[in-house]
């Protein structure tokens, strides 16, 4: 008698030790180990995600390759302001449809943000990747709103130094190179904080074994100070603030 009611309640009430279930299922990242720890089981749709890189070429393209390879015909994958040159033969070998990969090289960060908003607003992009060094909170919030309204995942690639800045992104991943693949620390997600870094083995081009052998746990010595004890560090998921009320303004503040 009580069991169905309880299970119903269970779906309605979010408990602090569980991942949130977003309204939209995420888009699978192509890496099962990463999907397992992301709310929604993949890259959040209609939201801003952030990847924080210690340097360019740390493995971010390898992480995003499955996403770029699955762009259906008639849609774009937009790369806005990439810091280097994505190498066409390697992308083609990984199955990325090059004719649907739009490389945008704007002359200023303002133009880059404009291009990203256009790409989101047009709803013709499967995913928008934006490399951005400096951005204030207002710009990020506008990007997050644009992503929310368009239903398109926007993935922001920023330097590691931005990890200490507040961000409206729903998902923040800090990437680090590690032997045999890519180390990922989840800085922010809708769910309890994951203190253990994740190690992903990125597929080697050509399908053979990686020349550096297998995966080895990433060193925890490098990187930012991170909460050492998992107890008491569970970040609670707050419900989304109502759109009309800007953050930082409380009802009684005036």
């Amino acid at each position, binding site marked *: 008698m009580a069991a169905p009611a309880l299970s119903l309640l269970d779906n309605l009430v979010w408990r602090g030790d569980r991942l949130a279930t977003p309204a939209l299922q995420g888009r699978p990242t192509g890496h099962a180990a990463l999907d397992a720890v992301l709310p929604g089981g993949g890259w959040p749709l209609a939201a801003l995600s952030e990847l924080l890189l210690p340097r360019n070429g740390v493995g971010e393209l390898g992480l995003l390759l499955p996403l770029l390879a699955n762009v259906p015909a008639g849609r*774009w994958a937009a790369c806005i302001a990439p810091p280097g040159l994505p190498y066409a*033969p390697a992308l083609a070998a990984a199955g990325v449809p*090059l004719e649907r990969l739009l490389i945008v090289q704007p002359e200023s960060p303002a133009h880059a943000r404009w291009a990203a908003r256009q790409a989101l607003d047009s709803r013709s992009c499967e995913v928008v990747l934006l490399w951005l060094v400096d951005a204030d909170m207002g710009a990020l919030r506008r990007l997050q709103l644009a992503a929310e309204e368009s239903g398109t995942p926007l993935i922001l690639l920023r330097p590691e130094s931005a990890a200490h800045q507040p961000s409206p992104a729903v998902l923040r991943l800090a990437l680090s*190179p590690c032997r045999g693949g890519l180390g990922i620390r989840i800085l922010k997600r809708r769910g309890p904080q994951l203190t253990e870094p994740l190690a992903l083995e990125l597929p080697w081009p050509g399908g053979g074994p990686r020349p550096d052998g297998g995966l080895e746990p990433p060193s925890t010595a490098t990187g930012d100070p991170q909460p050492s004890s998992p107890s008491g560090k569970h970040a609670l998921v707050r419900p989304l603030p109502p759109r009309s009320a800007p953050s930082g303004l409380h009802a009684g503040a005036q």
Partner: protein
Amino acid sequence: MARGVEPGLGRASALAIAPELCLVDRQPALEHAALIDIATWAGRFTPAISLDPPHAILLEVETCLRLFGGLVPLGRQITKGIEELGFHARLAVAQTPLAARWLARFGAGDDAGKALAARLDPLPLIALADGTPVGPDSLDLLTGTGHASLGEVRRLPRHGLARRHAQAVTDALDRAYGRIPDPRPWFSPPERYASRLPLPTPSDQVDTLLFAARRLLAGLAGWLDARQAGIERFTLVLEFERNSQAPEAPLEIVLGTLSQDMQRCQLLAREHLNRLPLPAAVDALRLTADEPHPLAPPAGELFQGDDGQPGDAGLLLATLRARLGDQAVRCLTSHPDHRPEKAWRWVEPQPPDRSRGRQEPPLPASPRPLWLLPEPRPIPAPPPWTLLTGPERIASGWWDGPEATVRRDYFVARSQDGGLAWVFRDGVAPHYWYLHGHFA
């Protein structure tokens, strides 16, 4: 107008009333060009159009009333459209072309339900000379005999008029009242659209130019609508003031897909105009359209929701290129060459709905990095990194000249932080080492 300047007022009197009045000479050629523009635009309503110079256009609308939902909605659409073109029109409907012209000019306008004769009879005598060979002497004759309206003239004995050299009067009345046929030559719209709009005063304000461009685009929309066609690109030519260095600046606007959507044209025209530095004030705008291609009617959905609409990939491409420039928005492609720098190319992006599945060139068997440095970066020799695989020798390329010739041994190396890099040793002495890419 508010000060009392009226048609027919002399130049000196008008200036005395309103000293700041801007007087412009009439240019009959421009008026005729405007008439042709309007007739071209009117092709969206009916194919049977006839020019009736100097200031009338005849549309045969009986056959298309049903399509536009009757006379009143059609008239509303025509009036609204002509206002978008920047003109002001008076409409009248009648069974014969001459009657329609007279009623438009002299009629009261609210008597469409009455019989033709009843509507024409009260018109003033001056209407007789409008669009007919009736001369002023005939009008003088009729005025002198005390007639003031068409109805009175119509009741005069016909042979009496003919005897007094006023045959033209009876002919005109017969044509207007539908007693003899009045065939008109059909107007055929031009094969390529070209239109020119002189600005009232030279301007370098983007908003003013856009306003003018909107008028030109409205004409283009009518022309395209008549052909059920779309265009892929059009050219907007800005003609600068006469004393400037460059006489004109063409602005080619690519729409990204076959379209007759004027919203899109305006949006892209705004982006292009914002980017263009104007060396002088613009005197006139000219619009020429690309060859039109037949356009399938849009496939509408019965239940059109806001969500899940696919989005316009071509529009995004056109918008980005309009503001950022063609060089900033490109696609990559691989190229069958063994030298890493030559194995890729920039290509013009094609709207995705049009790009075919391309034949991929054969790829090198060895793995290639995802990021390639634009220039190989020198690293200390021997490299401080662990070499994992290699060497892979990539050499030659003499056919592109000595500077493109390479002779390198490539290795996959693990850097200190664990990432994999693509490094090479130069084959020519002194065998420097370089970093060339990241497997990332």
